[in-house]
């Protein structure tokens, strides 16, 4: 079976600290039709919980990558531009020193 290009790339270039190599290929190879079928579950409680879990996942991914960007020397302006928010918003949300 032919392995998709992205999946082949994923084998070598997993996201830093976020996704294990095995999981990356699972995500990349996910069939969109299969995903649509799964989304139309007949249990609304499970579906809503899944939506919230996706929000949480996205938030954690964002936070980890912003921390990584800052380690690499990105300014808050660059982080804000990448996230589509102002630098003040990015700083308020992700600044570790605010604790």
């Amino acid at each position: 079976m032919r392995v998709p290009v992205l999946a082949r790339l994923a084998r070598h270039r997993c996201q830093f600290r976020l996704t294990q190599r095995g999981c990356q290929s699972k995500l990349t190879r996910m069939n969109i039709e299969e995903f649509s079928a799964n989304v139309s579950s007949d249990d609304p409680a499970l579906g809503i919980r899944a939506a919230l879990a996706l929000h949480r996942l996205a938030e954690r991914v964002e936070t980890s990558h912003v921390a990584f960007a800052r380690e690499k020397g990105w300014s808050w302006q660059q982080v804000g531009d990448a996230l589509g928010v102002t630098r003040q918003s990015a700083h308020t949300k992700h600044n570790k020193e605010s604790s």
Partner: protein
Amino acid sequence: MTTEHFAPETLHVWAISLRAGEEARRRGDRRTSTEHVVLALMEDPSIEAVLGVSLQQARQALAALDNEALGSLGMSGIDVPSLPMRTVPKRPKLRDIAKKDRLRMTPAAKKVLVESVKPNHQKLQVTTPQVLAQILTLQPPDPAAVLLGALGVKTLEVRRRLDAVTPDSTLPGSE
């Protein structure tokens, strides 16, 4: 776990709210919900004793619920670490409450805290059993009720234990 040495702590309601907010931030939530209030209450060992589960077990149960939900979308085996928690003062000052990055509460979570302090003379002081008693009145699909269900916590049993240790209190649902 036993409830023999049950000594409910009186807390500032904002201490619970801020603690719950940190639990929400740790999980990656954008709002503080009732499930986070449950986790915040479990900081008090007497509440862990009454519920019969530990804070770690509750956190793991929430992670398991998330994995189950993501699994229903065909997304299994995703492991993104929780975010680090910041320290929360037991007696919060105005500057702690006024922080810009404080998460907002869901209406249900806000109602739980508002109803908990209602019977008290001092409207900003509350005991952990009072808040837990309010939590116990919630029904699924409320997140706290789902969490307690996943942990196998029997509401009536906890209610009975709460009544036994705080007989003269004005806990909601008490006969």
